[in-house]
């Protein structure tokens, strides 16, 4: 029995953190956000040097062949750095879909290119998890797609996009396919690229090997686990920043961190967030090692982190006093990061409903 990270995992996380400290300091995040770049190629390049794009891709296809727990540690670190980089679409969802439901030829065609970071992949699967809004929905007929998908991740300059249709099918669409229109959506979180995709008789190739429903479940559970891990990282940094600020800011002749009114807020944040770390480790581990618990633990990780990180984001901002809400301090990048994570792939009420459904406690 060993419920802890391995030496390799700790080293990998530390080395990624070091890389991001250099490649992606707050000024870089700010520049990305203010100029609305579609993709921060330099940050992606730094991740590529560490092999992040191919982290889940098998070694035979040029990847690292790691698991979802390793991926969760990377997601946590990206969240901690509010890193403006493709990840969930390109390094997680598309590779999982192609490895799970792609033919050998499709795997051979795409996995090595994704693993090397040379190609970028987007993922448009939100409606299959959180439901369709504003007339979203994708129909497939004769190898062509029609309709639209909202909240596509990493799709803006992607070479290939994973698309889930409304009937439970999975497709790959080339980024330059005729009839594909990509519209960048503006979210509160300006550190990640979210798009709407519109399809008009857009040619697509089906991913149709194996159990597609199982692959869709795996994609959903991975998406939940990764957004939860992203929130863990972001919320953890917000606590660190609040504590550091309370240890240097003086009022009434005292460090404000010596007032119980302030330090108890910090204790409450830590007490809420710390058990989340174990929840995410377990959920991420379960994705590969405990299939029977994979969906439920992923759902609870997502819903619970959504609640806890909202509390932390709000409270950490308050501990900073007026500085907390300024653009100058930049705490809002973390605040907004968890704000998007909370809504993506279903807000907590939706996810808890699905958690009840999977236990037979509610009808779908």
């Amino acid at each position, binding site marked *: *029995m*060993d*419920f*802890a*990270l*391995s030496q390799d995992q700790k080293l990998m996380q530390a080395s990624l953190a070091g890389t991001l400290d250099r490649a992606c300091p707050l000024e870089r995040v700010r520049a990305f956000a203010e100029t609305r770049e579609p993709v921060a190629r330099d940050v992606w390049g730094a991740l590529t040097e560490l092999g992040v794009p191919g982290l889940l891709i098998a070694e035979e296809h040029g990847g690292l062949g790691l698991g979802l*727990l390793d991926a969760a540690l990377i997601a946590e670190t990206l969240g901690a750095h509010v890193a403006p980089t493709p990840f969930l679409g390109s390094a997680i969802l598309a590779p999982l879909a192609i490895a799970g439901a792609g033919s050998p030829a499709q795997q051979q065609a795409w996995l090595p290119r994704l693993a090397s970071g040379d190609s970028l992949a987007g993922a448009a699967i939100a409606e299959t998890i959180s439901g369709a809004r504003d007339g979203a929905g994708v129909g497939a007929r004769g190898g062509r797609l029609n309709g639209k998908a909202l909240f596509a991740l990493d799709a803006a300059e992607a070479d290939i996009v994973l698309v889930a249709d409304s009937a439970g099918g999975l497709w790959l669409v080339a980024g330059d396919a005729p009839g594909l229109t990509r519209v960048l959506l503006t979210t509160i979180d300006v550190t990640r690229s979210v798009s709407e995709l519109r399809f008009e008789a857009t040619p697509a190739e089906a991913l149709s090997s194996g159990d597609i429903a199982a692959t869709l479940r795996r994609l959903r559970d991975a998406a939940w686990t990764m957004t939860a891990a992203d929130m863990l990282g972001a919320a953890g940094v917000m*606590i660190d920043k609040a*504590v550091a600020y*309370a*240890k240097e800011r003086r009022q009434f002749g*005292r*460090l404000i*961190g*010596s*007032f*119980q009114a302030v*330090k*108890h807020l*910090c*204790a*409450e944040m*830590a*007490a*809420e967030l*710390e*058990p*989340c*770390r*174990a*929840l995410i*480790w*377990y959920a991420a*581990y379960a994705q590969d*090692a*405990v299939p029977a618990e994979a969906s439920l*633990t992923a759902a*609870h*990780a997502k*819903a*619970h982190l959504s*609640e806890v990180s909202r509390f932390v984001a709000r409270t950490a901002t308050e501990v900073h006093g007026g500085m907390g809400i300024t653009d100058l301090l930049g705490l809002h990048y973390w605040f907004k990061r968890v704000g998007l994570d909370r809504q993506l792939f279903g807000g907590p*009420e939706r996810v*808890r*409903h699905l*958690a*009840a459904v999977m236990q037979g*406690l*509610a009808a779908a």
Partner: protein
Amino acid sequence: MDLAYGPEYQAFAAEVEAFLETHRDRWPSTVGATREQVLAWQKTLIRHGYAARTIPRQYGGFGAEPDILKSRIIAEGFTRAGAPGGLAGQGISMLVPTLLEVGTEEQKQRWIAPTLAGEIIWCQGYSEPGAGSDLASLRTQAIEDGDDFLVNGQKIWTSTAKQADMIFCLVRTEPQAPKHAGISYLIFSMKTPGIEVRPLKTMTGAAEFNEVFFTDVRVPKIQIVGARGEGWRVANTTLKHERGMLGDPNAAETRLAAIMAMMNEETVSGERLIDNPVLRDRLMRLQARVMAMKFNGLRLITSQLAGEQPGLAGLIVKLQGCELNHQLAAFAIDVLGELGALYEDSPHLRNHGAWQQRYMFDLGLIIGGGTAQIQKNIISERGLGMPREPKTVDA
């Protein structure tokens, strides 16, 4: 990360299961077991290493090497089988570890074995009316008188004082010393002349606690544990053991399962409670919290196995665990609606009124053993390195 137990432990789990099956006829029943049956079961458990497992043999224990996984397997095995575990109580869980750490050889020989066997029941004399969270300001005094101390003062929140044979008690022996340095740790018989026990009835309707009054209680000086003036350090050895007791994630998991079963069975106007989406959402929220605390527990076990300090993951257990148990009881009451307000022996009562009882009693657990506010001081100061509140002059 590897959550499998490995062959040695799987074999051990099978051993536990086999033991419980072959001894099923000797399990004392939860209601109405005689003292003899309970003590005989305790003896059997110690002999097989399922109670007092790591206490050395010469002091009446089983004498196994500490092995957290085996302890966990035993606890899980007993819970799964619904078997009564070994005796708990403040003597076994708090005094024995303290004596093992700081007691004299004679004290260990004399007190540990009969305590483990359940022959001596202990109570804890720490809190006083004027010394709660600020325990070190306690004023019960022990004055030297020949070979004895004369103890005068009052203790409060003393659970099991009515049944107890003995008390382990904090007293002030050096009134001139700074408050933490003037305390000593005494053990003495509750039959000593000059002790009066008054039950302290709480909001649950039961007297789970007592007040204990000392008037010229004569205690031989050799019954001090640790040196004179060292009682605060000795007590902290004991409190460390208490904090481990008060946030058991298994209790929360059991409660959650009971609530889930209740929601599946109970109906309001023909609709099952589980079919109410608002209640179901609250159930799911609590399930996530129970899971997080359970996995946090796995993390703590692993760091104990590795001999590492658990840090924040350990510091938050008392605060979060007690709060979660309380929230579960509150939710169970809400699920029951009007029936949730029934109590004692009312018609239509559910679960013997346990949810209301727990809701009230568990509020006491949030306060006792270091209040939630003290826990937050500990988390922020020790866990986050935040500055202490400046001392006022008279504190």
